[in-house]
């Protein structure tokens, strides 16, 4: 369904909730145009930052004449240059993200909605936004751009990809997700510092994924991790014995939910806590959510909290 915005996954109501919020980079980012974000570079820009001594050969345009008049000394003005954010939204489109329960969005769609809102928000902030989707390999890789046309292209690609994935029968199993490996590749691909927004269920070896996240941080990227679940995955609300089929591998397993629930939940808790701790250790924003929580509500809460910091 196409919303009034013209894009299926860009809901104006959701957009309206976050429009007054901004997504600021935590640290300095290397933007290429003026934007909201602090630039690491000190050059000549609008806002005065500090003085330095005149060195023969400097451009006299930036000489501070008032200081000369007052002190008979030659000083050059230095200015902070506000620049734009380069962000890359990395969306997991593996089969596990196709999981949904009744009255809930598939995780992929949830992620798509989240991607759209984030992309729109950042585009309005004059930030450059790119989109990368992956499962066992990178499916779509759109570099970060600021233009509205680029945004539209991203949305179109996103819709097309999701539609394509939707059409794949659940019975056709994939080969699983190699999140860690793909994240390592992406960490190498993004040369310049940027904000990485990872939307995934992270069903891979936690240690390997954490190493990949560390890789991003090593490359001085700012990372936000949206760990997406379905409520059924969290609570394991199944009652009847059933033959469970892995959406990614096609593996089958007969399970009596009553027996395994406690143990499953303990493992899941440990899984989530592990990521939470790892993200906390390397200063990655970790946001756990499930598809029963409206994405706009979740996002606005997060952005408010992030802005307050």
């Amino acid at each position, binding site marked *: 369904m196409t919303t009034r915005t013209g894009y299926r996954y860009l809901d104006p109501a959701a957009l309206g909730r976050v429009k007054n919020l901004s997504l600021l980079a935590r640290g300095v980012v290397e933007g290429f145009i003026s934007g909201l974000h602090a630039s690491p570079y000190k050059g000549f820009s609008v806002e005065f930052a500090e003085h330095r001594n005149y060195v023969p050969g400097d451009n006299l345009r930036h000489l501070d004449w008032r200081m000369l008049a007052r002190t008979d000394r030659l000083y050059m003005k230095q200015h902070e240059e506000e620049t734009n954010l380069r962000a890359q939204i990395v969306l997991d489109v593996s089969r596990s993200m196709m999981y949904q329960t009744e009255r809930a969005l598939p995780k992929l769609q949830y992620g798509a909605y989240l991607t759209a809102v984030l992309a729109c928000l950042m585009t309005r902030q004059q930030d450059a936004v790119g989109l990368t989707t992956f499962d066992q390999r990178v499916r779509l890789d759109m570099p970060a751009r600021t233009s509205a046309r680029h945004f539209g292209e991203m949305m179109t690609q996103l819709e097309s990809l999701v539609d394509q994935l939707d059409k794949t029968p659940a019975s056709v199993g994939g080969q699983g997700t190699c999140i860690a490996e793909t994240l390592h590749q992406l960490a190498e691909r993004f040369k310049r510092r940027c904000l990485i927004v990872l939307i995934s269920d992270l069903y891979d070896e936690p240690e390997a994924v954490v190493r990949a996240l560390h890789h991003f941080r090593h490359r001085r990227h700012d990372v936000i991790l949206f760990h997406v679940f379905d409520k059924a995955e969290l609570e394991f609300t199944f009652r009847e014995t059933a033959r469970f089929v892995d959406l990614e591998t096609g593996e089958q397993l007969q399970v009596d939910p*009553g027996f395994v629930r406690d143990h499953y939940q303990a493992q899941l808790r440990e899984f989530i806590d592990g990521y939470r701790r790892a993200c906390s250790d390397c200063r990655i924003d970790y946001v756990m959510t499930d598809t029963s929580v409206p994405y706009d509500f979740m996002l606005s809460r997060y952005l408010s909290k992030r802005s307050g910091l």
Partner: protein
Amino acid sequence: MTFGVAAFLWAAVAGIIPVVLHMINRQHAPVVYFSTLRFLRLSVHRTRRRKRLHDLLLLLLRVAALVLLAIALAQPAVSWLHRWMTGQSSTSVVLILDNSGSLATKDQNGPRWDRLRSAALQILDELREADEVALLVTNGPARQSVRGLSRNHEIVRRAVRTCRPSFERADLVAAVSEARRLLRSAPVTASEIYIVTDMQACCWNDLQRPAETAERDDAGCPIVMVDVSGPRLSNSALLAITTEATAPVAGAPLRVTVDLQGDAQVAEERHVSIYLDSQKRDTSSTLRIEPAERVRHTFQLTLSGSGLHRGHLQLEEEDACPADDRLWFAANTDPSVRVAIVKNAAHEIANLDQAYYLERALTLRNDPHGAFLVSSLAPASLASMSLAQFDLIFCVDLPAPELAVAQQLVAYVEKGGHLIWISGEHVDPVAYSVMDNQVQGRLLPTRLFGVQRENVERPEGWRIAWIDPLDAAVAPFAEPASIHQSVLITRFMKIAPTAAPGVQVLARMDDGQPLLVRRRVGAGSTCLLATSLHVDWTNFPLKPLFLPFLTHFAFQLAGAEANQPVLLPGDPWQLPLSADDDTIVEVVRPGGEVVRPVREEANPNVIHFQDTHEVGVYEVRIHRGPHVRTAAFAVNPDPEEAAPGYVTAAQLEQLLAPHRLFLCHDATRVSQTIRDLRKGWPLGGVILTLVIVALVAETFQANRREYRVPPV
């Protein structure tokens, strides 16, 4: 266990349904697509064992619920009277009826015997046609019982109707042992024993287990005991009777002593009357019987007239049990003991005759029916005379008899005669020894050594110092010593000082030498008085002791006594005889029936009379050739039957183990009790409860793993 509707047991096959459903469910579990199995895989692995146990338990509960429901619908019941399921073809039953004396008691709810008979008939009514039954009546003639297992129930019914209470004590332990023997030999495996009794303790052998132990198989043979006793009324009983007569002669005093006891909780007053020859002779004063105490009373009578006298004691007041209110006794006077006195030629002066005092003592009454029929014989006449006609032969101061006479005398003694040698001047110890040797020492009780006369050492002679207090022939005169110490002996025949084997010393003198000895030879005896019965040798004939001693001794030897024996019902009466004795014995029962007991082949020297179940006086006529001697004995109720003790169910269970014991206290509802026992205790309720428990447990078990909101 039995089943009322066994067809429902087929429904237990439904127990396989949960198994089948379980297997179907496993194969057709719905498919659920899930994001990842990485957590489920480990969880399933960790909980696999617990799940298996849970599933198994659940399966068992479901199967159990269905199977138990089928069993409950089949109306199960536990019955020890039916070993297998219904449809058993036949049962062997032994019915034991306790007809001991206490069954004649009346309780507050009526006579026990009536209830016993009613209970027995109810038991017979509950038998099926194919059941075999035997009847064991504990007391009385064997003809009352039906000792073989039989399908002819009518014979048993008739026997029950004609059976009567006895006066005896029952031995129910022996009856149960006999019942076991009967049932072990039965071809049918199912068996039951019924005992109808009043639970009196004395019938259970002091609760001692029998020598023959129960076998393990007996555990499958239940014993149903019907208690026919009711709320008791008080009862007094005559327990024991003793009679004493100094001599079995008319005019001699007779003392009759009776013991009474009551079972009331308070003292009671009773009166006892004595009857002799159907006439009431005396009534006691008021006898006060304290609880649990015995009272003794003695009647003193004089027997008039010769012959057999029948008497009984009667409790005047009516009480619960009339069977123990009467005791019988018999007294035999003037038994006509035939005595021969063999002596030398009579002295011309009568009182100088050696046998003078003896003859006078034995012929006090000049009466053809007197106590002693005395014949005086010359030694020469012995050879040609049949000595069997005499009960006693006194040989008074005789020279040693010839061999032929000696042999005849030996034969006489061996056939039951009694020979008494009286010493005197003509008794030559050497000749007597030769004579005795010729007959292999069977004529004299001991050897003779010569005459001892008073001498310097013994100027006054010897006195009787000791009389055997245990021998019935002389015991009445053993005490006090004063009655025999006055007897002086100036001359006596020395005999062996110590008794040889088989020889009994009945009296000794003050120097320890024997005075009177006896030896049993064959069926009779030979005695020797070391002194004479004449004043030349002793003053014994002049002493008051002489007459009663001599007559009592003679009566005892001849077996004639006033006090006739008293037996308990069922006790045998015996008469010893020699093997070639042609004595014929007749027994006249109290009811007048004449019976001739025969000798047993196994023991021809004794006549047994066993049929003493009737109480009263039994007259015995002993025919020896043309002569008839009369004896008697009385049969009285067993005093133990009056004992008030009763057994408890716990005591009987221990005694009769491993049999299972069922007690029926209401003799009017025996049929219903048997039906209930055969039907068994219904288990339907119990099993339905188990079904409900199984279902509840299954529900809990199935829903143990409930959905909970996880705290993730």
